């Protein structure tokens, strides 16, 4: 049972902290920091399902976030739907698309799969850039009207923030649940040796398509919320290739395959990035440092922070998920 897992309660505690901290003194700038961290955790956690659990490196994970943003913003702005419903529908639509993409490209393995994920990102971006209803390359803007049902802009931003924190908690809970389930065991078997997994009875084709589609759902919901909060979307910010790569750095940094590792990596990397971006000296170098960091992790601690801990204290494997 998930309720008996200590990490389930830790996740809830962290989420509570995220909600309480900025509320205290109406600290909007802290809220904006935390929202970026929450998004990083959401992306890293869901990417972990593919890379850490199943062993399939997805370079185009950000496509789900961007597409979710587009579908969500389209529904709220053009159709006047309510935010929560739009975000959920965005998640479902993107998840379904991912399932179809997955059936097509998941027969590829290793580097070929990784290349195909880049292909999907490029193809979707090219499609959206030429798609009239979504404003082609200029994108879409949210009309101020859309904030009204939520009690005006100020209120709407807070509500969106709470929803994003909820999605963050949910991402980690989903990771935790899958990790301890039979489904998760099947994924681990695929990661370790796909041929052996199939011979042992795991239906790898279906499992991979399902996990690919699951890993798309919450990022898409988060995208819908985030771009609603930002009030605008265009292809270059929705499908920011850099963010896709940084997702991988976060995961490697924290420790792929671990629920806590993915979240920790996401939070730490986001902290570091915002520090570098705002620092007057280093702001132009943040990608150089990210690249260097990735190199160091891959060379000296291939399992990331958590992997390093596992090696130091083998018993931690059983305790820290």
């Amino acid at each position, binding site marked *: 049972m998930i309720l008996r897992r200590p990490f389930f309660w830790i996740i809830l505690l962290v989420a509570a902290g995220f909600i309480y901290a900025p509320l205290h003194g109406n600290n909007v700038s802290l809220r904006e920091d935390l929202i970026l961290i929450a998004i990083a955790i959401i992306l890293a956690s869901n990417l972990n399902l593919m890379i850490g659990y199943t062993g399939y490196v997805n370079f185009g994970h950000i496509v789900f976030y961007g597409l979710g943003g587009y579908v969500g913003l389209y529904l709220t702005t053009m159709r006047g739907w309510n935010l929560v419903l739009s975000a959920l529908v965005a998640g479902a639509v993107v998840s379904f698309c991912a399932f179809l993409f997955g059936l097509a490209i998941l027969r590829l393995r290793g580097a070929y799969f990784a290349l195909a994920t880049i292909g999907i990102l490029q193809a979707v971006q090219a499609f959206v850039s030429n798609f009239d209803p979504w404003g082609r390359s200029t994108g879409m803007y949210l009309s101020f009207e859309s904030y009204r049902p939520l009690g005006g802009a100020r209120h709407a931003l807070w509500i969106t923030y709470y929803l994003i924190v909820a999605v963050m908690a949910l991402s980690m809970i989903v990771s935790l649940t899958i990790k*301890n*389930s*039979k489904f998760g*065991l*099947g994924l*681990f*078997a695929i*990661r*370790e*040796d796909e*041929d*052996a*997994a*199939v*011979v*042992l*009875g*795991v*239906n*790898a084709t279906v499992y991979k398509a399902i996990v690919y589609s699951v890993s798309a759902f919450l990022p898409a919901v988060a995208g819908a919320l985030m771009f609603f909060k930002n009030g605008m979307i265009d292809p270059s910010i929705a499908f920011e290739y850099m963010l896709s790569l940084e997702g991988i750095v976060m995961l490697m940094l924290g420790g792929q395959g671990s629920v806590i590792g993915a979240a920790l990596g996401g939070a730490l990397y986001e902290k570091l990035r915002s520090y570098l971006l705002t620092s007057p000296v280093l702001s132009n170098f943040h990608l150089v440092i990210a690249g260097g960091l990735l190199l160091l992790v891959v060379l000296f601690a291939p399992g990331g922070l958590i992997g390093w801990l596992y090696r130091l204290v083998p018993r931690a494997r059983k305790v820290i998920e």
Partner: protein
Amino acid sequence: MNTLLEVRGVSKRFGGLVAVSDVSFSINEGEILGLIGPNGAGKTTLFNVVNGVYKADQGAITFAGKDITRCSPDQVVHLGLARTHQIVKPLNDLTVLDNVTVGACFGREYLDKTEARKVAAEVLQQVGLGDRVDMLARSLTIAGKKRLEVARALAAKPKLLLLDEVLAGLNPTEVATMIELVRKIRDSGISVLMIEHLMQAIMSLSDRIVVLNLGRKLAEGKPDEVVHNSAVVEAYLGFPDAVHKMTLAGKLTWRK
């Protein structure tokens, strides 16, 4: 006795190479059938065709009354046909227990994880890995990994077990315990089809033997019929009266 597996006229080609050509045989319930032949005879390919890793180009395979010719490996396991690999394929970063739990989870009974763990623990005890459950599979010795292969296949609760060279690379003591294990498996009601190069072992274990050479079935019969079959001797040793001469010289004894 009931026929459990029937292979009829199966062929498998890779481009111009005919790896298995028009092979037919059957296994009865409760039987150990040995599959022997020189290197490159097509034994492992035949295994791969039977459990669905490769699709047969011709012929049909029936298992427990069902046509499995077009089934994928995971479907075949659900029907109760499990196998081991000649080149071991441990799930390295999972514990020994988890490795076997995968077998139990996705095997014939499709158990949920809690029950699968219990089955896995029992099977590990049975194959003699009971004290290694929490180790990572990567850190097992080669003999341990071979046992792990057998344990994973057994955890699937199969009706028929395909063993692909489980004795290769083991030292004499390990061979003896593995042979004992195979006997126990058969006694528990599981039929076995095994590939083996270790003649003494397979001669003493098998009820019947099928000999392959260059993808074709060369002979079939009881162990001592097969060793005295001149076509078999020629395939292995190159000249037909070798066995006769060696038996006379007292160099060849097949019986225990």
